[in-house]
């Protein structure tokens, strides 16, 4: 039996194609994935992301606990509502999950973790909590729904749907959040566009979704969410990194703090392990579509595509690939697709952001 979000009935009303996503019945699209993709790059779309799990870390010493739990440094969070993207590692340096941490106050941080990792993450965090900070509460917030409103017109349409929000949410800079009544509004997203991720009580979610619909925000499925995040060069857990890969070989070195004295779980392994692989962007030069797990042949050795798809913004196929560290931007590599070797260019990513193609 698949789990359903509080918005399941709204998706059915809108004729969504529903699929099993990590045990959740989620909309993959509402008609056309490509149209939904373009709407987010040019106007405003919304995603039901209620399958993701918010977890509140509450109690004295929350910051000290998080300093050890995750690879990025929560000491970067000094102002209320500030957000931090980070990986949570196991002792071997592999990625247990990637998450966003919001700082509310010294005894309240909010984490948002992936749906597919939620049970594993809770178990992992509880084990670490028992060891490091037994007094701390870890509260999974399945009572909340989460809606992402994304696109250049997301803000304007959000104010139209909920006029009272404007005053508090309009001043938000990217990667900052504010509590508005019983809603939690963050200027974050997974698309490479301006927008908000809004957590609110599950019961209120269908009403809020309807208000957004009436304000002209188009429902978009997880299909478009995936092509948007790939164009924006954002990793997807389980594809671009997992427990067998470290953040350093997953294009996420910028999220790992190895400079401070602080010790965190997985740090020793990161310092010890060879850094012989890197994540790069690929743009296919021949006709075809790059897909996950296709082998990549380079002058420096073999690699593998971790996320590949068709980019609606570029009208070309793009990918993230894990390749030997000796591969450089501008190199031409070959990707094996159905027994054929096709040429692809190693490019800097993001591929597209803020409505524009970048490669």
């Amino acid at each position: 039996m698949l789990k359903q979000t509080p918005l399941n009935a709204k998706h059915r009303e809108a004729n969504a194609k529903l699929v099993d996503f990590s045990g959740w019945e989620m909309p993959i699209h509402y008609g056309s994935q490509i149209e939904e993709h373009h709407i987010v790059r040019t106007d405003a779309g919304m995603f039901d992301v209620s399958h993701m799990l918010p977890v509140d870390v509450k109690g004295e010493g929350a910051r000290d606990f998080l300093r050890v739990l995750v690879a990025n440094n929560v000491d970067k969070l000094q102002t209320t509502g500030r957000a931090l993207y980070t990986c949570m590692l196991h002792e071997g340096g592999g990625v247990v999950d990637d998450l966003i941490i919001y700082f509310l106050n010294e005894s309240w941080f909010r984490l948002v973790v992936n749906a597919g990792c939620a049970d594993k993450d809770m178990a992992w965090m509880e084990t670490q909590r028992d060891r490091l900070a037994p007094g701390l509460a870890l509260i999974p917030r399945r009572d909340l729904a989460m809606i992402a409103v994304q696109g250049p017109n997301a803000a304007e349409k959000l104010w139209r749907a909920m006029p009272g929000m404007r005053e508090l949410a309009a001043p938000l800079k990217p990667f900052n959040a504010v509590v508005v009544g019983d809603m939690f509004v963050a200027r974050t997203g997974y698309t490479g566009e301006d927008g908000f991720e809004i957590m609110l009580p599950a019961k209120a979610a269908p009403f809020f979704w309807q208000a957004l619909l009436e304000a002209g925000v188009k429902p978009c499925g997880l299909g478009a969410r995936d092509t948007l995040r790939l164009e924006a060069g954002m990793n997807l857990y389980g594809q671009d990194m997992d427990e067998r890969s470290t953040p350093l070989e997953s294009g996420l070195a910028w999220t790992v703090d190895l400079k401070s004295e602080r010790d965190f779980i997985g740090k020793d392994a990161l310092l010890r392990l060879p850094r012989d692989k890197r994540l790069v962007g690929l743009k296919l030069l021949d006709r075809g579509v790059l897909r996950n797990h296709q082998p990549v042949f380079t002058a420096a050795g073999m690699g593998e595509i971790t996320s590949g798809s068709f980019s609606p913004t570029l009208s070309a196929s793009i990918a993230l690939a894990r390749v030997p560290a000796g591969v450089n931007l501008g190199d031409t590599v070959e990707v094996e697709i159905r027994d054929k070797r096709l040429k692809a260019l190693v490019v800097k990513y993001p591929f597209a952001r803020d409505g524009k193609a970048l490669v």
Partner: protein
Amino acid sequence: MSIPANLKYTKSHEWARLESDGAVTVGVTHHAQDLLGDMVFVENPTVGRKLAAGEECAVVESVKAASDVYAPIAGEVIAANAEVEGSPESINQDAYAAWMFRLKPDNAADLDGLMDAAAYQAFVESEAH
């Protein structure tokens, strides 16, 4: 969308139509494009290639996934539709108009071994459950 009565169908969701000149036109069904979603790539077999019945001979890819296309019956490829390669989305718009390739069948009677519209309809419904 209704399933055209004048075509024959395979379990791998190709349609085949016998033309007045004896050629057989092949495409993928509306149901196939509905399963796959927005089409972004089509690769047809080369003209002159001889195909066995059920042989993998073409590919359609949507944003979501790649899917092989199989020869409904044995024959030689006598035409490939370059237009559909140039605009794969035409399969989403009208799967029965957006033909992929034409065969000169080894034996046109082989078409009798394929499903008619009613049988295909029943097959699609059985797959959905």
